[in-house]
């Protein structure tokens, strides 16, 4: 417990330690904000150094004068109204820079002979002391923020324009690709037809040398057509224009058709397609043409990458409403560094000009897109030197 004397001493100490009014003023003068105080009679009773610098008005010229006399241009303006409500209703207000352009006539000290207005954000707060009402007006210089945001505005506008331009370019590119592809496909089809007729001998017996050259021309025409068809498919997928007619599809029937269609291709590589025995009646939900396209792609890839004279095994299994089709080759396997890019566009493990196997590098990318559109998946398991198994998971057709 403090004795009465102790208490008195303590109070005296507190009093002497408390900063004097002069010290408070000094502190306010150091503030990086503009500050002035208005009393209930609307007279300005405090005007800090920041205000002096920014307004070029000394305290002696404002202290004791009413607000409307100091700022005649602000009479009836929102700032005067909020000062009144702060004094009459003790309400705090904010005047933002964006909704109130340059409230007070405040400027930076002459910069290169130019007078530059200070961008302001103003808060007005009621203050009560000793039963009297006052209103504090605080001005924050938001010029740096205004400048920052004007830069942001320019950048945001440029970014939006850039994006629009990029979209335009991408659309032009896809239009160009599809036009060019169509223009290429039509003449190629008639070249292929003509070469076929010549090769068949309808136009007369061919010299062996001519027959060999016609064969080369035919093969390359086929390759070009494959390439163009793949590019067109890719384009359709990217534009979201590839249409799917989903419905019940007899998987084994379609698999057998695909194998038959790819048989001649397999023979080129001396590869046999072996479909697992004793399976039938598996109905999946798919688009017949598209699922055949995926099968063909996997079957031709398997032949292409098989060891000459080996088999390609095709197995089918069923679990949890899904059917898995596996196409297994006994080739060199997929190199580790290529495995992550295998479904990318235009990817081939051997990207050199001298690569041994043909193809556009679009097939797997198209297959994956098709499988995704049919709610299925595609994947692979591979071992270097032993071979690769590609698998497809397809949804069973649900009668309900």
């Amino acid at each position, binding site marked *: 417990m403090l004795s009465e004397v102790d208490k008195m001493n303590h109070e005296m100490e507190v009093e002497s330690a408390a900063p004097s009014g002069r010290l408070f003023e000094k502190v306010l003068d150091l503030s990086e904000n503009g500050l002035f105080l208005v009393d209930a009679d609307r007279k300005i009773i405090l005007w800090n150094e920041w205000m002096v610098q920014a307004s070029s008005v000394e305290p002696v010229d404002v202290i004791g004068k009413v607000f409307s006399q100091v700022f005649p241009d602000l009479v009836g303006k929102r700032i005067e109204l909020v000062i009144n409500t702060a004094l009459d209703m003790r309400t705090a207000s904010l005047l933002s820079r964006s909704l109130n352009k340059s409230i007070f006539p405040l400027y930076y000290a002459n910069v290169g002979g130019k007078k530059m207005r200070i961008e302001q954000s103003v808060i007005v707060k009621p203050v009560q002391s000793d039963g009297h009402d006052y209103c504090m007006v605080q001005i924050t210089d938001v010029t740096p923020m205004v400048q920052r945001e004007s830069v942001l505005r320019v950048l945001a*506008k440029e970014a939006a324009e850039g994006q629009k331009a990029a979209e335009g370019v991408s659309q032009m590119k896809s239009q160009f690709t599809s036009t060019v592809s169509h223009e290429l496909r039509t003449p190629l089809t008639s070249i292929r037809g003509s070469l076929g007729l010549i090769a068949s001998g309808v136009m007369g017996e061919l010299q062996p040398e001519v027959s060999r050259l016609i064969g080369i021309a035919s093969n390359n025409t086929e390759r070009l057509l494959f390439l163009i068809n793949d590019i067109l498919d890719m384009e359709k997928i990217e534009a979201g224009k590839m249409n799917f007619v989903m419905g019940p599809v007899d998987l084994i029937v379609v698999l057998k058709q695909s194998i038959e269609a790819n048989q001649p291709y397999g023979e080129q590589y001396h590869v046999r397609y072996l479909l697992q025995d004793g399976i039938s009646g598996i109905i999946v939900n798919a688009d017949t043409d598209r699922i055949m396209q995926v099968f063909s792609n996997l079957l031709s890839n398997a032949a292409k990458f098989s060891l000459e004279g080996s088999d390609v095994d095709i197995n089918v299994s069923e679990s949890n409403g899904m059917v898995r089709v596996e196409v297994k080759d006994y080739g060199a396997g997929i190199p580790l560094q290529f495995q992550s890019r295998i479904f990318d566009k235009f990817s081939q493990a051997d990207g050199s000009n001298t690569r041994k196997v043909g193809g556009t590098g679009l097939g797997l990318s198209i297959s994956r897109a098709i499988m995704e559109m049919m709610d299925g998946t595609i994947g692979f398991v591979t071992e270097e030197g032993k071979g690769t198994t590609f698998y497809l998971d397809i949804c069973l057709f649900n009668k309900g």
Partner: protein
Amino acid sequence: MLDITELQRDYITEILNISMGRAASVLSEMVSEEVSLSVPEVDFVQRNIAAEKFDQANVSTMSGVTQSIRGAIYGDALLMFPEEKTLSIVRILLGETLPVESLTEMEQEAMCEIGNIILNSVVSSIADILKKEIMSSLPRFIKGTGCEVFAVETSNDDDLVMFLKVNFGLESQSINGYVTLILNVDSLQDFIFQLNEQINAI
């Protein structure tokens, strides 16, 4: 839940609409454009129920302005809109377009001022009914789900929320938002008492 009579509800709605009209005319003058504000509905619900109501009605994040209020009533006043609506209000009022999907620092400040004008006039009309003084702090920009927004400071489930639907008419758009005042039970009983006094005096 607080039961108030139809007459009481009409009276409060009327008074709030008058104050909203004042706020709208301040805003109209500031942006030199027709702005209308109205309160079609007033409700009193518990704080946690208000938060749920908020989240059910609005899937997206809400954003807006909050001020603490002290004096005759003690709590928080909030003005909230679905976030994208806040964006349209500020950008229509400032007459600008910006391809950025969140408010910039300066736009947030502008929203604070808009909220400040609206909330001050709501608070002052409540003070008029109470015939007592209510002081409010400076506005602050907030963002979050109903539960986040209502978990503010006075986290007492007994607190009641005065829930006002607010219609903000701008250009040809009509934007719905909410003003809420989180009140403690004592403030509210006083509020109802004063309300009845005034209704009886008419």
